[in-house]
C-alpha cells in the first residue's frame, strides 16, 4: 500500500486523462466564440487593426491591411444584445479554461460538509455549461436577457441535460477530517460523473457502502492505481481513497448481473470495532459493514439456508473474494491495453 501522502497527487494525475474531453470541449468553445467575436468586430468597426495583427509581421509593408480587410467584405454581424451575451459567455469560458484542472479540485473547507463543497464545485462547472448555452442561443439570435442572462451566473447541476452530465469532468474532493455524511452525493451520480474522494482519519470504515446501486461504480481503496479503471467506466461512479484499516472493495457494474458478482470485497473490518466518527454513530457504521458483507455474499445454493450472521458473512466474503479480486485486477490489466473512453 502506498503512503497516504501521495494519494492526492496520484489522484490528481489519474483524473487528468478523463478531464481531457471536458477541457478540450471547453477550449473548442472558447475558440469558436473568439472567432465569432473577432469576425463581428472586424465587420462592425471596419478597422483593419485586427486584420493587420492576424496577417502577422511577414505581411507588414507587403500587404495593405486596410485594403485587405475592406475587400474581404463584411462577415455576418450580430445585434448588440447577442454579441454582448457572447462576449460575456466567452469571458466565463476563457476564465474556466485558464483554471484547467483546478476546476475539478474541491477542497472541503473547515466546517463545511462534503456535499456542500461538491455543490459549490458543480455549480462552477455548471457556469461553463450555462455560458455555452447563452452563447449558443445568442449566436442564433434566440437569446433573451430576461430569460437567459442568469445562466451566466449560475447553472446548477439540477439543470444540466444528459449531454452535459455525460461530459462533466470528474471531481477530486479532498476531505481532510470533514464530517463524513456523504449520502447527498448520490444526487450527482448520473451521466458519466465521477467523484473521487480523498478521506483522512478519522473516517468511518465504509463510507461508500450505501452507494452500491446496479449501474454505479463504487470503489473504496488505498491504492490510487485502481482509479484508472474506475475512471474509464462508462457511467457514474464514486471512489474514495481511504486510510489503512477502512474497508476496501470495488463494485464494478460491468462484472455481472447480480450484485455479488459485481462486488469484490478485499478487506472488511469487524463491525464490532466501530466507533462514532463525527455525526455517524458506531451502529450506523456497523450497518454499512454488514450491508457490504450481505451484498457480497451469493445466496446459498439449494433451499433456504439460514441468513448468515454478520461475522459469518464477513469471513467468506474476505476469503473467497480474494480470488475474485484477483480476477478483477486481471481484467483490469487486460482492459488497460484497450483505448480509454
Amino acid at each position, binding site marked *: 500500500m502506498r503512503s497516504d501522502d501521495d494519494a492526492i497527487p496520484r489522484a490528481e494525475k489519474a483524473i487528468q486523462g478523463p478531464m481531457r474531453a471536458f477541457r478540450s470541449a471547453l477550449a473548442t468553445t472558447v475558440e469558436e466564440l473568439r*472567432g465569432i467575436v473577432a469576425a463581428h468586430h472586424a465587420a462592425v468597426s471596419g478597422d483593419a487593426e485586427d486584420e493587420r495583427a*492576424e496577417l502577422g509581421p*511577414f505581411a507588414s509593408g507587403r500587404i495593405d491591411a486596410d485594403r485587405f480587410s475592406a475587400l474581404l467584405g463584411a462577415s455576418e454581424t450580430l445585434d448588440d444584445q447577442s454579441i454582448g451575451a457572447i462576449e460575456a459567455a466567452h469571458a466565463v469560458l476563457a476564465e474556466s479554461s485558464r483554471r484547467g484542472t483546478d476546476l475539478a479540485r474541491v477542497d472541503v473547507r473547515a466546517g463545511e460538509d462534503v456535499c456542500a463543497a461538491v455543490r459549490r464545485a458543480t455549480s462552477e462547472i455548471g457556469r461553463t455549461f450555462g455560458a455555452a448555452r447563452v452563447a449558443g442561443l445568442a449566436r442564433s439570435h434566440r437569446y433573451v436577457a430576461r430569460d437567459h442572462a442568469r445562466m451566466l451566473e449560475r447553472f446548477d447541476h439540477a439543470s444540466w441535460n444528459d449531454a452535459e452530465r455525460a461530459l462533466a469532468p470528474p471531481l477530486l474532493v479532498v476531505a481532510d477530517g470533514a464530517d463524513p455524511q456523504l449520502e447527498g452525493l448520490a444526487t450527482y451520480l448520473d451521466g458519466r460523473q465521477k467523484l473521487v474522494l480523498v478521506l483522512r482519519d478519522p473516517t468511518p470504515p465504509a463510507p461508500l457502502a450505501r452507494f452500491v446501486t446496479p449501474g454505479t461504480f463504487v470503489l473504496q481503496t488505498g491504492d490510487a492505481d485502481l482509479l484508472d479503471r474506475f475512471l474509464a467506466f462508462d457511467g457514474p461512479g464514486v471512489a474514495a481513497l481511504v486510510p489503512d484499516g477502512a474497508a476496501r472493495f470495488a463494485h464494478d457494474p460491468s462484472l455481472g448481473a447480480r450484485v455479488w458478482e459485481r462486488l469484490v470485497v478485499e478487506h472488511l473490518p469487524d463491525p464490532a470495532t466501530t466507533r462514532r466518527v463525527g455525526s455517524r454513530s458506531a451502529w450506523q457504521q456497523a450497518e454499512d459493514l454488514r450491508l457490504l458483507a450481505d451484498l457480497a455474499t451469493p445466496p446459498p445454493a439449494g433451499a433456504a439456508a439460514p441468513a448468515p450472521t454478520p461475522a459469518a458473512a464477513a469471513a467468506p466474503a474476505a476469503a473467497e473474494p480474494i480470488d475474485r479480486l484477483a480476477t478483477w485486477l486481471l481484467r483490469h490489466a487486460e482492459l488497460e491495453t484497450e483505448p480509454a473512453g
Partner: protein
Amino acid sequence: MTSITEASRPDAGNDPRATGTPRSMKTPEHVVEIVSDSGEGAQKCGQIFGAVSAMMGNGVWTVEIIPAEIQPPPRSIGSASGNRVRIGAGPVTNWGDRANLVVAFNEQALLARHRLDAIADDAIVLLEEMWADHDDESIRAEWSAAMEELSAATYRIVRVPMEERCLTVVDDARKGKNMFVLGMLATIYARDAERTKDRIDQALHKKSDDVRRSNRALFDLGAAWAEEHLDFRVDVPTAPNDRPMVVMNGNQALGMGAIASGMDFLAMYPITPATSVSHYLAEAFPRVGGIVHQAEDEIAAVVAAIGASYAGKTAFTVTSGPGLALKTEALGLAVMTETPLVVIDVQRGGPSTGLPTKVEQSDLLAALFGQPGDTPKIVLAPATIEECFHCVVTARQIAEAFRTVVFVLSDANLATGVQPFPRPTPDPRWVATLPDQRPVEEGAKPYGWDERTGLSRRIVPGRPGGAYTTTGLAHDDESKIDYSPAVNEKGCRMRSRKLAVFQQTLNPPPIHGDDEGDLLVVGWGSTKGAIEEAVDRARADGRRVSSTHLTFLSPLEPGLKEMFARFEKVMTVEINYSDRRADPFVTEENRRRGQLCWLLRAQLLVDVDCWTRVHGQPLAPGRIVEAIEDRLGIGAES
C-alpha cells in the same frame, strides 16, 4: 604553394605554431568550415560555435555540409560532412564566398572542399595529422597523394595532433574530437568559454553527466592546445545587442511558424530536404494539439490535408520536388473546391530525384502552372529564416480568407541554414479560430461568390442546414454539378478573380539601392542576402546597380513594369537552369531562361535577362558580383 607545418618541425620558418604573442587578424567577417567524416560530430561543433557567436553579438549564418549518403565510406571524398559558419561584425545574410579557415578531421574531407573551390587562396587549414603516419599503408599513400594535390594551392596547412591529444581524455577519440576542435575555435575567435560550455551541456542534455564532463574536458584541452601552439587569432568585432534573439534553421522556423499560425494538421510523406519540418513538429506539435500524419504517399498526404481543411481544421502539407509532382491532381481539387490549403515546398535540385540534399529554385513554374486546367493560386517565397517563421502565419490567413491554395516556396539553403533573428513576439490573433458551427443562415450557399471579388464564405460540415456536396467537377454556386458553358466560365472567373483582388492588396517591393540605374537585379526566395551583398559590393565599386526581391510570385507584386523601366537592363539571378547565351544553337528565340525571368517576360512584356546556376549550392555573393559586372560589360563572364 601550400605550406605545411609538421609537428616534427616546430621551428619551421613560417610556423604558425610558434610561441610568443600570436598575430591577431582583425576582419569584418570570417568564414570557417569544419569538415569530418559523418558521425564525427563536426556539425554539432559548428552549430555550437555559431550559436555562441550569435550570443556574443556576431552576425552568423551556419549551413550544413551534407554528405550524399547516410553512411559513406569513411575518409572518402563523398563523406565530407560538417558545417560552414560565416560570422560577421554586422548581420550576415548568406553563406559567403570561400572559407578563410578550415578545420578538417582528415585530408580527404579537406580535398573534397578544395575540389569544390570552397576554400580561399589564403585560408588557414587545421588538419588532423594522425593519417600521415598511419599504420595502414594505403592511408599513408592517400595522405601523400592529397598533399601532392593540395600543394598546387596556396593554403597554409597546420597539422594538429587531434587524435593524440584527445586520447589523453577519452578512449574513443572519434567521439569528442569535435569538442577539441570547438576549443581551438574558441581560442582562435576569443569565444566565451563558459557560454560555450553551457551550450555543450545544452546540446548534450540527453546524455549522462560523465559524457558532459568529458566533452567539457576535451573543449578545455583544445582551447589550451590552441593557446599554446597557434600563432594567430581572428578578431571579428562583436556588437552585443539587447534585442532577444532566437536561432534555428529554416525548417524549424517553418514548423514553429505553423504552431504560431494555429495550424492543427500536417500530412506529409518523408522527402529530403522537407522532412525535418515534420521531425520538429512530430515532437512539438502535440503540445498544441497538432497531429503529424505520415501518410502512405504524397497523394494521400495532400488529400488528407484537404480533408482536414474541408472539415474545418487548418491543415498543411510539406514536400519537395518529386512529392510536389505527385500532389498535382489534388492541388487542382483544392483550387476547384476552394478548400484552403498551405503547401510548403522545400525545393531541391531536379528534375526527377535530382539532387536530393542540394538547393535549387526550380519549382516556381511548377507551383504556378503545374496543375492541368486553370488553377489560380497564391505563391509566396520567404527570403530568410526569420521569414520562414512569419510567412506561415500570413500564408494560413490568406489561404482561409481567400479559400485557396497558398504555396510557400522555401529551399534547401533555408532548410539547412541556421541564423539568429529577432525573437518573434507571439500574438494570439495569429492563431486560427475554430470554424463557426452555428446553423447556416437562410439562403447561404457553399459558393456564395461575391461577383465583384470572387470571394465566398465557407460552410464546414457540422453546421445544421448546410448539407451540400463539395465536388471537383464543374459546379454552380450551390455546388451542384453543372457542365453548362456559363456555369463553367463563371466558376473559372470567380476563382481567378480572387488573385486579381489579392494583388490589389499588395505593395510594390522595395528597391535595394537607387531607384534607377544601369542594371536591376531581380531575385526571389533564399538568394536575397547574397544578391544584396553583391549589389552593395558592386555599388561600392561605383556600379549603378540595384536589386529588388520578390516575395509574391503569384500574383506578382504591383509596380514592377514601371520599376523595371527606370533601369537600362533587368536581370534575374536564380538557382535554376537557363541556357547561356553563348551556348551552341542557343538563340534569343529558343533560349530557355530562368523561371522567374520567364514569368516576368511573359507577364510584363519586358526584356528581362537572367543569370542562373544549378551547381547545387547557395549562391556566393562574389559570383553574383562577377555576373553583374559581366552584364554591365565589365567582366569577362558569359
